[in-house]
């Protein structure tokens, strides 16, 4: 017969091993030595006693716990997900949820962009107060230039050209440009306006 496994040794120590194992433990020198060593270690460990607190201590401990419990919030309510157990089925379900959330977010952003000043101009009448004007610096050259150009453009002409425009839409568009882009825009506008073929 093979030697005792760790759990067999513990069963022999506890007196609940099968007869076959007990007989082996008695007849096999190696296994008997292992069982004897384990028994002596268990006995030695068991001889260590801890000091018993005074009888009053238990009352004090109860009072301490009671005080802490009364100050603590009530037992936590069960979370809605507490009934879920982790399994691989969660992965595809979670993926679908995340995907749907991403699609929804993208769609929402697209709708927001469609409702932005340039695209939403048709819905907001010229002169209406759709959004506050952007706060661009008064000394910003491109802004000044664009303002002058827009002031010269007649609204009905823009509508006829099918160009959506609202109050401040050019400024808002300008605001979204970087400083370098605005400088380049100003340069292009100036060059265009300086062109004899364009100027009135």
């Amino acid at each position, binding site marked *: 017969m093979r030697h005792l496994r*760790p759990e067999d*040794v*513990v069963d022999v120590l506890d007196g609940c091993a099968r007869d076959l194992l007990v007989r082996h433990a008695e007849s096999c020198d190696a296994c008997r030595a292992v069982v004897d060593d384990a028994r*002596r*270690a268990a006995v030695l460990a068991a001889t260590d006693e*801890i000091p018993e*607190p005074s009888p009053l201590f238990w009352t004090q401990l109860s009072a301490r*716990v009671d005080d802490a419990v009364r100050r603590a919030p*009530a*037992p936590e309510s069960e979370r809605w997900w507490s009934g879920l157990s982790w399994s691989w089925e969660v992965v595809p379900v979670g993926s679908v949820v995340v995907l749907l959330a991403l699609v929804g977010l993208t769609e929402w952003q697209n709708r927001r962009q469609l409702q932005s000043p340039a695209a939403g101009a048709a819905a907001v009448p010229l002169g209406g107060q759709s959004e506050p004007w952007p706060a661009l610096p008064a000394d910003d050259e491109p802004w000044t230039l664009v303002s002058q150009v827009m002031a010269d453009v007649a609204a009905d002409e823009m509508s006829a050209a099918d160009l959506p425009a609202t109050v401040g839409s050019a400024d808002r568009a300008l605001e979204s440009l970087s400083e370098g882009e605005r400088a380049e825009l100003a340069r292009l506008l100036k060059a265009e306006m300086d062109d004899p073929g364009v100027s009135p």
Partner: protein
Amino acid sequence: MADAAATCGIGAVRFTWIGSVVSDPAVGAGANPPLRECEDAALVRACLDGRTEAFDVIVERHSRAVYRLCYRFVGRHEDATDLSQDVFLRAYRGLRRFRGDSSLATWLYRIGVNVCLNKLSIRTPMLTALDETAALPARGEDAAGAVLREERARQVRAAVARLPRKQRATLILRVYQDLTHKQIAGVLQTSENAVKANFFHALGSLKRALAKQDLR
């Protein structure tokens, strides 16, 4: 479990005797037995129904076992007291997670082992930190014998403190808390055979650590 709840009046009539039972068991005894006579599961349910005094009975019932468990891990009265309070506080806050699959004692032991191991992992492991107790002679024992016994106990504690976490928890629950291997498996959420193997290896480690003592 349902029977226990019914016999303890934890149901529709529970609010008729709130607050009177623990302080004065005679009051209301005609209709409902006092909380002290309720089983653990019924106390848990009463507590979840808002009767915090039911938790007092739980503490009273299990404080010794929890304190001793904590003491075995940290070896200092003050720390064991703090940890015991922590164990009960965590148990109270997470009481809804106790589903009665195991006994309340097993559940409290589980919390206790986790709290103690967490505590030990964030501080220097105890090597000889157990309270220095005076080596008082036992009946029929001379002073020298008492000193020798205390010295041996100190060495055993130090050896137990050096055991790997699972072996240590297993040894404490088996030898000092007198739990069965099956109960320990419930506390440590492992198999019974794994508990036995851990216990065997813990004893082997203990034997080696104490090799220069009695086991030589």
